[in-house]
């Protein structure tokens, strides 16, 4: 790891590679995940899923299953008249259990609760469901054709209070949402163009493969609902549960233990409402633990068809970009409307684009629902945008790095009107990547290099709170609604609290992700936690310190002298007092507590949106095996432009992990549908990267203090995924003279492209 820093000073342990605070728990097997939780009286649920991609449910016979020994409850939609079955973050269109119709193969139709999971599974086989199959469609372009099967006869209820009403302009019954991003005079831009590059680029249906499958437990106690879940956003799940069961928010408690991988796939609500409904009918606590095969059917990443035209002048300056994007959201909207909006926002990428017009439609198909996934629209559109930068460079005879330097936004420059200016030095990032990749050194035959960039409007909404509680021994409890899903929030947030209160890290204890015990945070996603929760904790620490200084004056020096605030406490004359001394003195005994509150909203430095720009800057060197079509990434450079690395070791891990995930998407990963069925919905057939795929890696962390967060921090962890597919495509062009526009760049696709290249050369 190399660190490049021009940022200002920050108090230790901020900026230090301290060991992960969840380290011992996770290497001893003592760390508890949702899959590890049990409780007295717990019953176990299994789900019967539709074998049809699109069908009307004629009848369900559960009598034999109900009689099966050990069965506690058998639940269909008809058994839940007292529950609001339909939920959804952007569009309420998703019944927790099929209501009259199924829209993808694998949709839950019946739930069985039994004394153990094996009995529940046995009972599922005793349920008979009569279906009337309907015509189905599994590709978004086909879903928009005349006469395509209509997947939702009635539009879902738009969640206007979450800001999605304007995205719903239905041009076709299978269009779920439409997002438009445009500025400048697009006709003029293309009219003046010296060069127009056009193309269609495809990004596959993908699976995040969080290794812990979706799991939830629900328990009802006197009208209060407690749910344990492997989910990223406990407060959002609370809101959906409150609506489904008509409960006050305060009567719903959502607890998130350690999360075994998220990557966006565990954001928003998944199986929690159904688990709670099963527990309601069972009259007992219920655990619903999905298999990986079922998890794949629960949420996947959005496939994309991106049709992009880019206009350039003769010097390679971009004049305009015009695009239509189709995202395949599957049977339900889930969070795809937001992915669609972000895809439209992110198509311009890190460049100065005088005129842009993008229409992104999310389209229903009879496939498993798509939702948030690391990168969130950016990998899909960056493949298109960055491919065309290289295509234009070649046609104009300009070096591919030079054409980027000419177009990259400069620090502070706004990508479009009324947004925050770019909080990064993109040209410097590009030059660092070139240096690390050895851009000018000679390459072996069959190798190629490329560097690509992205810029994402990240951070989501600033709606974040924290409490810092100072105890009479000077130790701290920091409470926050951010989840620990491996990204290291439990470590970096504690580092920031220790730094801001001036105490040792060992004296900081973090309480996370329990809606009854910690205060509100909107979500753990969009790379927002270090930035926004970091600011909330800093604000809470400031609030506590201000109170403590006043308390010191009142209780330790009521008649003067003036109390002086120091890093770790106060000084009165020659005497120093730590924060614990002040707490005890003010309460006049041995106990007490000072509570500091931090609120972050759209105000002050976090008023402008987005809260920050997440930068991706990745370089690759690839080789192409002409005989097999196998692409090997030989070398990978990641630039982690994070403003201030609160913990550089964790930043490095996030960057490399993101880039390797991008490498998997670019070269191998794709969920394949045939005849309405998912053909490779398991870990045998869906191949994710292994140790043997690891290239030589150069990780650079860049700290220029230019983010809105504490000491100039800003988010990371997604950026290094976004440009990887584009970088590989461009490097393969230079290695082998083939232009890959459809990911994944599987050996078969590459081999075919090589043969076409040879055939074209002969003719």
């Amino acid at each position, binding site marked *: 790891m190399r660190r490049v820093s021009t940022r200002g000073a920050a108090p230790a342990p901020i900026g230090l590679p301290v060991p992960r605070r969840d*380290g011992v728990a996770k290497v*001893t097997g003592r760390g508890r995940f949702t899959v590890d939780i049990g409780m007295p009286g717990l019953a176990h649920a299994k789900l019967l899923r539709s074998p049809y991609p699109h069908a009307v449910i004629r009848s369900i016979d559960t009598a034999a299953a109900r009689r099966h020994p050990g069965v506690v409850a058998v639940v269909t939609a008809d058994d839940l008249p007292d529950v609001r079955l339909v939920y959804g973050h952007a569009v309420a269109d998703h019944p927790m259990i099929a209501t009259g119709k199924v829209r993808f193969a694998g949709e839950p139709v019946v739930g069985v609760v039994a004394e153990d999971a094996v009995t529940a599974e046995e009972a599922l086989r005793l349920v008979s469901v009569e279906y009337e199959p309907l015509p189905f469609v599994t590709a978004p372009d086909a879903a928009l054709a005349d006469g395509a099967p209509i997947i939702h006869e009635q539009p879902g209820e738009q969640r206007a209070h979450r800001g999605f009403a304007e995205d719903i302009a239905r041009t076709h019954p299978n269009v779920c949402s439409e997002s438009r991003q445009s500025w400048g005079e697009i006709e003029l831009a293309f009219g003046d163009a010296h060069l127009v590059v056009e193309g269609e680029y495809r990004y596959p249906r993908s699976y995040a493969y969080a290794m812990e499958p979706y799991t939830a437990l629900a328990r009802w106690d006197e009208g209060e609902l407690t749910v344990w879940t492997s989910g990223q956003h406990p407060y959002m799940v609370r809101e959906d549960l409150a609506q489904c069961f008509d409960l006050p928010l305060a009567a719903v408690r959502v607890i998130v233990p350690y999360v075994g991988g998220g990557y966006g796939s565990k954001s928003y609500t998944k199986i929690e409402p159904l688990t709670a409904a099963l527990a309601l009918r069972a009259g007992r606590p219920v655990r619903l633990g999905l298999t990986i095969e079922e998890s794949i059917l629960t949420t996947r990443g959005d496939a994309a068809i991106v049709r992009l035209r880019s206009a350039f002048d003769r010097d390679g300056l971009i004049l305009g970009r015009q695009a239509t994007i189709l995202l395949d959201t599957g049977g339900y909207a889930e969070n795809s409307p937001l992915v669609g909006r972000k895809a439209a926002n992110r198509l311009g990428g890190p460049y100065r684009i005088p005129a842009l017009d993008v229409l992104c439609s999310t389209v229903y198909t009879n496939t498993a629902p798509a939702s948030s996934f690391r990168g969130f629209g950016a990998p899909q559109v960056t493949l298109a945008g960055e491919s065309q930068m290289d295509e234009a460079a070649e046609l104009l005879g300009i070096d591919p790095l030079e054409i980027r330097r000419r177009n990259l936004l400069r620090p502070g420059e706004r990508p479009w009107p009324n947004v925050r200016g770019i909080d990064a030095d993109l040209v410097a990032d590009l030059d660092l990547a070139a240096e690390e990749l050895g851009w000018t050194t000679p390459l072996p035959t069959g190798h190629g290099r490329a560097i690509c960039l992205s810029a994402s409007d990240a951070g989501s909404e600033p709606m974040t709170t924290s409490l810092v509680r100072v105890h009479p021994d000077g130790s701290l409890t920091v409470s926050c609604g951010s989840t620990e899903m491996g990204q290291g929030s439990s470590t970096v947030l504690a580092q920031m609290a220790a730094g801001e209160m001036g105490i040792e890290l060992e004296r900081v204890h973090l309480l996370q992700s329990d809606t009854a015990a910690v205060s509100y945070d909107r979500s753990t996603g969009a790379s927002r936690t270090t930035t926004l929760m970091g600011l909330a904790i800093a604000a809470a620490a400031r609030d506590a310190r201000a109170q403590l200084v006043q308390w010191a004056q009142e209780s330790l020096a009521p008649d003067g002298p003036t109390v002086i605030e120091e890093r770790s406490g106060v000084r009165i004359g020659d005497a120093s007092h730590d924060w614990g001394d002040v707490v005890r003195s003010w309460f006049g005994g041995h106990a007490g507590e000072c509570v500091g509150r931090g609120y972050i909203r759209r105000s002050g430095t976090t008023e402008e949106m987005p809260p920050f720009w997440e930068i991706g800057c990745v370089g690759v060197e690839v080789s192409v095996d002409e005989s097999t079509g196998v692409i090997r990434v030989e070398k990978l450079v990641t630039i982690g432009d994070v403003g201030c690395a609160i913990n550089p070791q964790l930043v490095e891990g996030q960057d490399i992990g993101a880039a390797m995930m991008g490498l998997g998407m670019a070269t191998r990963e794709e969920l394949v549908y045939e005849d309405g069925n998912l053909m490779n919905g398991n*870990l045998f057939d869906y191949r994710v990267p292994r*140790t043997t795929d*690891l290239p030589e890696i150069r990780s650079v962390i860049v700290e220029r203090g230019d983010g809105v967060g504490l000491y100039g921090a800003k988010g990371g962890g997604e950026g290094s995924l976004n440009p990887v597919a584009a970088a590989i495509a461009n490097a393969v062009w230079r290695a082998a003279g083939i232009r890959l526009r459809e990911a994944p760049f599987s050996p078969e696709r590459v081999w075919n492209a090589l043969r076409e290249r040879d055939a074209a050369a002969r003719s």
Partner: protein
Amino acid sequence: MPETMDLSLTVNSRERALRIEARETLGDVLRDRLGLTGTKISCDAQVCGACTVLVDDLAVSACTFLAADAESRSVRTVEGLAPNGVLSPVQQAFIDHAGFQCGFCTPGMLMATTALLEENPAPSRDEVIHALEGNLCRCTGYAQIIDAVLAAARGAISPDAVPDAVPDAGLDTAPTAEATR
């Protein structure tokens, strides 16, 4: 009624005798009957390696290994790596090198590494990569895991491998000293 059977085995040096259903896997017995939930089940199909445990020192996938086949054998799980509360060199190296993020693959990764180093105490980088090919990790991209394994093999680990006292170790330029507010 399901067919049941008696099972005697040693788990982390402790002898255990229990009555199980014949269909149960070693993963079922460890997690559900013995409460050893450190062993994680992910793919449930012997692809991902998350459930790796050692049976008579050999790494196996507990998700598909029938418990009956562990009769009279010695099983080691992640819970047995630090018998006296002192982390093993492999565990410590994974902490020092941040060889995990979410931690779900970690118990299996640690057991596979333990088996490797017992058989080959000084593996090359390529040997580590090959030995861990059957252990998937979706968070780290593997680089820090491989560094951790090589460090454990070198014995180049210590509880204080990351000094708290040195500000901003590794900076190209180091303007950041401990600041006063």
